[in-house]
């Protein structure tokens, strides 16, 4: 039973309308570009997307927003996206904003089989409304539940045929957390190698969490805020 599939279209072929997806990445860094393109091609609709950000107008999750494939975004920050703003204001798109650390830890909880976690983020703010609040050592914490997602779609630098993954620099971000949290997890990698080529001490995501893996056809890796040193 091989986890290796030929390409993004094959990897996402079972994703249906109405699915709950997790998509790795921070800004445009470490996003599963090839799977996003395939989801746009497939035209699957009514999606709930759990992702720290929502891409920009013409890249990342922004491409799915353009095609109105997303019903709900669960994110920590959704700036810099005009179409997103239009759909939000028109009521076409639902948005749930979550503190970034809470987003990360709710993924971790799912991957580690913890039904819920306590975090102080948002205590005393409107984020706490309707949530269970509990004091530990005199400090308030919110009870936040593990995510349940049908699919997690992540992007790694290197992967092997067992599904073991290694990420590169800050393109790691949410990817290893979401990889653990999906009922089914699809990984796209820049370099797919045979089992045994990766150093077992340096694996970030063990293959047990990965169901399908493929080498992405190409990566644009667009830069959102190109910033350079003053000469």
């Amino acid at each position: 039973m091989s986890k290796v599939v030929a390409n993004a279209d094959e990897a996402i072929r079972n994703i249906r309308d109405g699915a709950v997806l997790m998509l790795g990445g921070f800004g445009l860094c470490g996003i599963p570009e090839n799977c996003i393109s395939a989801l746009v091609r497939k035209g699957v609709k009514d999606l709930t997307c759990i992702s720290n950000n929502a891409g920009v107008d013409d890249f990342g999750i922004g491409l799915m927003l353009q095609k109105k494939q997303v019903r709900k975004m669960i994110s920590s920050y959704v700036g810099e996206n005009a179409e997103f703003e239009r759909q939000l204001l028109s009521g076409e798109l639902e948005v749930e904003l979550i503190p970034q650390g809470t987003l990360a830890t709710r993924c971790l909880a799912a991957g580690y089989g913890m039904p819920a976690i306590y975090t102080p983020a948002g205590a005393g703010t409107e984020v706490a409304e309707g949530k269970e609040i509990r004091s530990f050592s005199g400090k308030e914490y919110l009870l936040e539940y593990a995510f349940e997602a049908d699919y997690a779609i992540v992007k790694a630098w290197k992967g092997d045929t067992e599904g073991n993954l290694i990420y590169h620099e800050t393109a790691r971000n949410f990817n290893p957390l979401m990889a653990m949290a999906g009922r089914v997890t699809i990984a796209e990698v820049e370099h797919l190698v045979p089992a045994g080529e990766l150093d077992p001490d340096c694996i970030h995501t063990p293959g047990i969490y990965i169901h399908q893996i493929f080498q992405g056809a190409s990566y644009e890796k667009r830069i959102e805020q190109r910033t350079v040193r003053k000469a």
Partner: protein
Amino acid sequence: MALTKEQIAQRIARELKDGFYVNLGIGIPTLVANYIPRGIKVVLQSENGLLGIGPFPEQGQEDPDLINAGKQTITTVPGSAFFDSAMSFGMIRAGKVDLTVLGAMEVSEKGDIANWKIPGKMVKGMGGAMDLVASAKNIIVAMMHTNPKGESKVLSHCTLPLTGVRCVKKVVTDLAVLDVTEAGFRLLERAPGVTVEEIKSKTEGKLIVEGDVAEVAF
């Protein structure tokens, strides 16, 4: 003369101590990195998963896999380490980050902070700010003393939706350096040439002035 943004950053940099791990927010806080005092070593944390932020890259050396929390291309220093977002906020929650510097729209005399949402405007999200303010053991706010309409941002109570409660320890504005105490804002220093009277008039929250207040010296 009110402090420039660079001078606010420069003043905040004096709060750094040798060996500190520091998280710098977007805007003025980012500038603090340019003024780390000589002879001390500080490691900068980026909540998207890096300890050891270096300077911006040289033209042509930008790496799309290497960005800060503001999505800007960066570099690393020797001895840096990458990690995932859960560990990143884990170390923040566990109090391992010594100092966090953030911008704000409003700060209250209790140390509450509002910096993520303006009712009626498109809300972009809190990003990592709520996690940082709920967890960091030492939070300094860098901001202008008043908003563009001239209204005080240093208040008895925040009017905007809160980001966190009773968390800000110090505020450095273009006019003043303030400690947040049990009794209110204590005026520590004033911008050169700015009078205590002017600071009082632009501070809506309770301001405590004791003795002579020195000017910020550069």
